[in-house]
């Protein structure tokens, strides 16, 4: 901070911000307003940031220790009974379409845009192409994102991409049983929001008492599915008895959850599917669960082809550095902010943020990107259009797949990431398109030493010579076949 005298005006003795200046400089969420960024020399006030983090931490512990009362479903909610469900499903069944894939996940993949949802959407298309009926089940939540009261989960059912209606999971189980179809297979993309014991009854409707279970994250190990201890940083999934777990706000939930998951694996043949080798290896080393088989199915594959029409990018152009996606800590937003604060004044660098909402951060060029079903390649196309050299992907947990990394590479950018980023680091090691660093210090050094300029030059040379083609996988359909 250059204006040391100014500190006397806006800071109290204990180094927290005086209330008046808090209103002027900060937003409600604790980030600096534009005027704050300018006046305070773009340096976030660490004490204030610490206060915010401590408040969030204590709130987390309180929440996890309070009994949350689930709300009753609204009276107007029409819940289909087993017979109604059965008759609606039967409309879709015929001689050529007699096999049913029941897909289970935590939300309606048609309404939310995220890696898992995109993956389910692709899987639905692949399944229908192979003649399956694709029946998707997700828990219905109230306005606060909580399940409705009662042990019998209320679910939303979607068939071949269209609404079938809402029902109790027990009704769905009865309807499926009553269909007496022999070819019913179950794919679980996520267990979140389900009563795992009740889901067991659904698995029992299959002939082989089996299911596929995807490891899109580590929910099978802990309800803190990114394995973030107290939502502060990656915990490496230590034993429940360890200090780290005992001192975590998720501990009580984990104890209960682990017992349920354990019995789920004991009672059914569970085929594990991981989107990357890193994820599978980590999961095997950290969970005591015994699957019937393990598979790695990448959501996408990259093909590097020699470029037919050579394009030369301007060598004098500033290095274009981008942040992609949600502005959240677990994806590395604070680190990117730090880089911008430190290096945006240098003419060699130009910083971009590609996301849906304006980050309102000084010295950043915001590119409004919304990935939709109709425009699934929006991110990749914008990266290519804006000639981004480097994407900073700095998650604080090992990403199981990282669609964002594939979007960055698909847009011909190189990636800078940390060694704990899971599949992102693996992709870079495999393709050579970027660097894997050990620490935040090394990231800052990359910019201050100018090594990032050389990396950008390498990517421009590569762009001149090669182009990237992406190939989507058919996901679970790689290991599921009609009987």
């Amino acid at each position: 901070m250059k204006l040391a005298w100014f500190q006397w005006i806006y800071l109290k003795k204990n180094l927290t911000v005086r209330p008046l200046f808090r209103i002027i400089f900060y937003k409600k969420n604790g980030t600096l307003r534009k005027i704050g960024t300018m006046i305070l020399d773009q340096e976030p006030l660490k004490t204030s940031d610490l206060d915010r983090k401590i408040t969030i931490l204590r709130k987390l512990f309180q929440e996890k220790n309070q009994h949350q009362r689930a709300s009753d479903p609204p009276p107007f909610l029409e819940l289909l009974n087993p017979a109604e469900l059965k008759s609606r499903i039967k409309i879709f069944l015929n001689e050529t379409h007699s096999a049913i894939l029941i897909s289970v996940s935590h939300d309606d993949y048609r309404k939310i845009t995220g890696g898992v949802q995109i993956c389910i959407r692709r899987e639905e298309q692949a399944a229908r192409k192979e003649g399956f009926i694709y029946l998707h089940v997700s828990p219905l939540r109230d306005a606060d994102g909580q399940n409705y009261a009662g042990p019998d989960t209320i679910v939303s059912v979607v068939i071949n991409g269209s609404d079938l209606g809402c029902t109790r999971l027990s009704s769905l189980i009865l309807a499926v049983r009553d269909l007496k179809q022999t070819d019913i297979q179950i794919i679980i993309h996520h267990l979140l929001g389900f009563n795992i014991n009740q889901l067991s009854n659904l698995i029992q409707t299959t002939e082989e008492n089996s299911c596929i279970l995807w490891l899109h994250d580590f929910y099978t190990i802990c309800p803190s599915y990114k394995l973030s201890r107290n939502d502060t940083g990656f915990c490496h999934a230590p034993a429940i008895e360890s200090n780290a777990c005992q001192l975590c706000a998720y501990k009580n939930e984990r104890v209960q959850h682990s017992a349920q998951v354990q019995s789920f694996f004991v009672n059914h043949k569970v085929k594990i599917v991981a989107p990357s080798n890193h994820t599978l290896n980590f999961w095997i080393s950290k969970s005591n669960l015994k699957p019937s088989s393990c598979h790695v199915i990448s959501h996408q594959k990259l093909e590097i082809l020699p470029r037919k029409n050579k394009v030369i990018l301007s060598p004098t152009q500033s290095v274009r550095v981008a942040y992609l996606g949600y502005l959240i800590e677990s994806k590395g937003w604070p680190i990117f902010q730090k880089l911008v604060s430190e290096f945006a004044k240098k003419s060699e660098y130009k910083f971009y943020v590609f996301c849906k909402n304006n980050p309102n951060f000084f010295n950043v060029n915001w590119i409004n990107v919304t990935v939709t079903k109709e425009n699934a390649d929006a991110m990749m196309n914008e990266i290519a259009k804006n000639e981004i050299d480097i994407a900073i992907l700095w998650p604080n947990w090992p990403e199981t797949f990282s669609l964002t990394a594939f979007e960055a590479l698909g847009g011909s950018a190189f990636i800078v990431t940390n060694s704990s980023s899971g599949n992102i680091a693996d992709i870079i090691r495999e393709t050579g398109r970027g660097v894997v660093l050990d620490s935040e210090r090394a990231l800052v050094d990359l910019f201050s030493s100018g090594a990032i300029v050389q990396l950008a030059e390498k990517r421009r040379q590569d762009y001149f010579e090669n182009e990237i083609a992406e190939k989507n996988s058919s996901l679970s359909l790689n290991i599921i076949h009609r009987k």
Partner: protein
Amino acid sequence: MKIHAYTSFTFCYLNRARVLAKTLRQQHPDWVIWAVIVDCPPAGFEFDLSKEDFDRVITVEMLLGELTNPWLFGHDIVEACTAVKAHALQHIMAQPEVEKVFYFDPDIAVFNSMGEVVDLLDHYNIVVTPHQVEPELANENQAIIDNEICSLQTGIFNLGFLAVNKSPEAQKFVQWWADRLFSFCHDRTDLGLFVDQKWCNLIPCFFEGVKVLRNPGYNVASWNLSKRKMAYDENGQAQINNQPLRFFHFTKLGPTGDVMTKRYARDNMEIHELWAWYCQEVANATDPLIPNGWWYYGIYSDGSAIEKSSRVLYRNKNNLAKHLPQLSNPFNR
């Protein structure tokens, strides 16, 4: 081998003492844990040992008999709770099966085995932990005042922790400590006294076989956080400067503790997580039947608070009670 541990508290600190007992029990299920209670329960509340992690109870009446009321009247809550530590230690050491005894303040939580100290007591009579084991930097005046000067004022060793074996030398120490604390366990830093703690500056001078435990994993607290960094290893064990965290002293839970922790832990989030955990554990262990700030001996029978000046006057004129028998129960009960 039987190891006993104890803590001393009033009912308003029962929540903290419960956290101590629970965490100590997790590490050492075979230890005998004592609650030394310098209080009487509030109406409606019953201290039911069968529902607690404590095994045994000592009340101040058991230690002081008919002297309880006049003696307690001469002490404020901190003085009283610290003064009984030596008498309670004598009481516990007198149990035939006891071989080693540990004292922990009620606002401590234990996170890893104390086995290393148990072993040390095979070779040493007394184990103590200093407030600080590393000097502050020369230009860190705030830290020097908060930590080093404070230790010079209130005692080199933190008496939130003490471990002794049952050797004659250890018993000699306990007898000396108990004698001093009976008459001079006062918060009078102007006279060079600070309750039970300042006396213990003399331990290494007076007694043989004293171990000054300098391992940073013991007695971690705001007064040494400037030199201690917490992290977790890959197995999830809490580490302080790369040594396992044995116990943390959550001194001054509340705004003061928050300010001091922020000042010295800074962005060491693991410490802030630990505090968040502790605040919640204490909240979970709090009994709503115990009023805030409850201390039976803190008030006269009419409910009015006893001024510290009245206590000082009473203890300074210690022959008052002899000449005026009605003052043998100064609480007017």
